[in-house]
């Protein structure tokens, strides 16, 4: 099967995203938008996490820190100039989180395996402490971020606008992941994941590619956070740095499959939807438990995730066909 070129892939993804957005207008109530917003948030976070974790093989426990960098960039800009357009906040948040990723990479990428992961967790704690003590963005008390009364571009209500923005950002995150995956850079990251020393000896500039990977991954996670203050209207550190961001952004690619951009999408839609349903029907307290149980099941029974199961199935089908001929 010939792989779709990115020149075709990009318009296809944006086209599907647009169609999906238009279809959503049939939604029966507002609850749909807030639930779908959360699922899309996880699509971005898990796609971003997977660039470093899945493609490059470095497990980042600090998703919440990058997400919060994005969110608090918006809060800070809002405090400074409340009328600033959202697009400015998105770009600024990506820059801040991307630079944080670059800095984290420079400090920690000489660490391997579990030591790298612990360092990212430490980064999360440091950032949390920093924000708690930063009064300008509300400190531990939190801050209100009030959305404009009139949504831009004739969207009517602001939640519709936020939802549309999130669809666009999710599509962008998937496209970025796909471009990296299919490029020479993706091949280099894969080599680093398999054997860093051998990669270096094959000419792969391992340090530079790892820094690129932490930067892009961090920037996309930050991007996911930039719209969040408008979504919740009240931002405080404890929920912005919530453990569930780190857990979900690891669990979703793992369950979906970590080798391609499709895995995080499937994982996020599946796990995200399940959690939204559970939250309404039972209680949100069950969410992390369900994620945990699914994670254990997949790690033991299908470590390659849903995409891995699919590839195995396809292989068997082909083998059967081959035998029949």
């Amino acid at each position: 099967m010939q792989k779709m070129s990115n020149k075709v892939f990009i318009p296809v993804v944006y086209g599907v995203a647009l169609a999906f957005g238009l279809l959503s207008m049939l939604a029966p109530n507002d609850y749909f938008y807030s639930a779908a917003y959360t699922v899309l948030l996880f699509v971005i976070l898990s796609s971003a996490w997977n660039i470093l974790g899945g493609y490059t093989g470095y497990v980042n426990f600090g998703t919440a820190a990058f997400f919060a960098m994005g969110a608090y960039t918006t809060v800070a800009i809002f405090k400074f100039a409340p009328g600033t357009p959202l697009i400015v906040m998105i770009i600024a948040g990506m820059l801040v989180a991307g630079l944080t990723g670059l800095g984290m990479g420079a400090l920690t990428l000489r660490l391997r395996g579990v030591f790298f992961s612990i360092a990212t967790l430490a980064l999360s704690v440091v950032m949390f402490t920093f924000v708690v003590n930063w009064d300008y963005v509300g400190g531990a008390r939190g801050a209100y971020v009030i959305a404009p009364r009139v949504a831009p571009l004739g969207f009517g209500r602001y939640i519709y606008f936020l939802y549309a923005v999130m669809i666009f950002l999710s599509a962008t995150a998937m496209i970025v992941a796909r471009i990296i995956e299919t490029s020479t850079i993706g091949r280099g990251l894969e080599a680093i994941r398999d054997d860093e020393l051998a990669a270096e000896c094959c000419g792969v500039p391992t340090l530079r590619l790892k820094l690129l990977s932490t930067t892009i991954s961090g920037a996309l996670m930050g991007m996911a956070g930039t719209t969040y203050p408008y979504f919740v209207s009240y931002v405080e550190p404890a929920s912005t740095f919530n453990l569930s961001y780190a857990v979900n952004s690891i669990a979703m690619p793992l369950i979906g499959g970590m080798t391609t951009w499709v895995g995080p999408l499937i994982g996020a839609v599946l796990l995200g939807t399940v959690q939204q349903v559970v939250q309404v029907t039972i209680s949100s307290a069950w969410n992390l438990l369900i994620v945990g149980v699914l994670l254990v099941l997949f790690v033991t029974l299908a470590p390659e995730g849903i995409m891995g199961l699919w590839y195995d199935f396809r292989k068997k089908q082909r083998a059967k066909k081959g035998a029949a001929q």
Partner: protein
Amino acid sequence: MSEMRSELLVVKGVVKRFGGFTALDGVDLDLKVGERLGLIGPNGSGKSTLVNCICGTLFNDQGSVAFEGEEISRLAAHKRIRRGLARSFQLPKPFATMTVVENLCVPILYAANARPGVVRASPAQAVEQAMEILNKIGLGAKAREMSGGLTQVDMRKLELARAMASRPKLLISDEAMAGLSNSEVDEILELLFAMKEQGIAVIMIEHIMRAVMRFSERVAVLVAGKKIADGDPEEVMRNPEVERAYLGE
């Protein structure tokens, strides 16, 4: 004729310590363009450590390594292979989640393509070049298999093939033949001989003396981090110090 060949690699006074232990104790070694050198020595004498210092996976503590007249001992490993210095690993290190042919594409895209003056191969051309090498080395039929599932013999061949894919000027083969049968040893020897026609210099590290004697134009002997002999293979083997080092094992 051989006097006309110019120096490709000049190693001078290389020292490498691990904590208080001196693994390389002032090693000198040089190699001319296209030359075939056998590097032998008992287990733990520092052969792999020397390879690591030459290729940049370890940095030497003292001394210098020059390649094509330029000092390279502070360069990162990826920059050295881009200049044409390739090695195979004693313990095979395949990119296990890639197919065999994809393994070869890595050095083609990252090392050969990064060399100044080389026509850059597109990803499709890289696959073609990789297939050519695999066919030559006898792995053509396994090109689409996952490299993690190869047998030990095939993994050693893959190590060599991947080093060759970078289009090296010097290839260092670190015990590529250990554990292979006689006919497989001959197969790999043929491959290494074929390098000569392409003007590629080879340093062959090997315990199988039959292969070393057949292959080498020159033999160097390392014992406990020191080079104790270097010269014509027959003469080196008659050297009493060398005999003692081997019999003393």
